[in-house]
């Protein structure tokens, strides 16, 4: 499944990284503590968060994540968008809150990390 498939399924709004939606999604991670995402997310993951700070782009780049979904209709900060365009990291906005979105992603077959 690609990022593009997820965008289509949920009707996510694309805020940045439009040219990088064809990447294969290996799994998902949901967290708003960036230190936690650095510690536990894996390459190719789609990341679900409510953090909108520019550091989310740096974390996604560092961890080679396929994209960031902001939930609850939160919009990225303007300098976050700018960074995401530079780094070509997809930033997507969902009107669902994290719990519902993650539940539906899981139903679609996107898995998490299992137990810690």
């Amino acid at each position, binding site marked *: 499944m690609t990022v593009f498939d997820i965008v289509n399924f949920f009707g996510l709004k694309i805020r940045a990284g439009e040219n990088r939606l064809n990447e294969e999604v290996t799994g998902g991670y949901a967290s708003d503590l960036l*230190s936690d995402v650095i510690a536990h997310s894996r390459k190719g993951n789609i990341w679900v968060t409510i953090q909108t700070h520019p*550091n989310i782009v740096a974390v996604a780049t560092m961890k080679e994540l396929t994209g960031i979904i902001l939930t609850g209709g939160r919009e990225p900060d303007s300098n976050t968008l700018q960074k995401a365009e530079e780094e070509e990291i997809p930033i997507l906005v969902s009107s669902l809150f994290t719990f519902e979105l993650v539940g539906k992603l899981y139903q679609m077959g996107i898995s998490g990390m299992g137990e810690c």
Partner: protein
Amino acid sequence: MLKTFRADLHIHSCLSPCGEEEMRPRALVNQAVAKGLDMIAICDHNSAENTAAFISAGDERGLKVLPGIEVTSKEEIHLIAIFDTQEDCTALQNLIYQNLPGENMEEVFGPQTVVNEKDETIGINRRMLIGATLLSFEKIVSVIHALRGVAIASHIDRQAFSLLGQLGFIPEGIPLDGLEISSRTSKEEAKNRFHSYQHYSFVWSSDAHYLKDVGRSITHFLLKETTSREVKMALHHEEGRRVMEA
């Protein structure tokens, strides 16, 4: 003539919902004097309604008290702001109040007691001081500086509500004046763990919520006098001012 001053620049009062009710001006000033401190800063969560009372109580005992606030950013990062004047501190408080939703639930978070310099209760703050403001971390730093204050990231060695916990690393180009390390981390450990941030000055403070914790962790500053302006100079190694190795 520069002198060494012993400072604890992060202390909560009974205004913070999580602060002990005994954290009142006379009691706290007595404790700080007993601990041999020269200077303290009162930094309640998102409010400075008790600072003037502490400054008066400090004046009576010859203890310098600086007005401050521990601000919560929208990313849920705690940030210490310290000023030389109550006016500047109150200006920050006013901006916070315009951007702080919610009402305190006393039975859940604790009471938010406003006091006078004689330790008497004169009011209750009803705002949800424990909550996050709608202001970004960067915005708060820039407002503190516009108001001539000192901006220090709180307890960066902790996971909860810290710059490093919330954002993973310190974003480039943030003009912070210093990084606070909690009493949980020794100076040696901090040097190793935060090696990549050594271009910032490290500050040790107690983050006391209880009288017994006042001064449990302090910073020695080499300053001309006990002002936030001098502290800022020390944090930036200006004109001989500096943080002492202790």
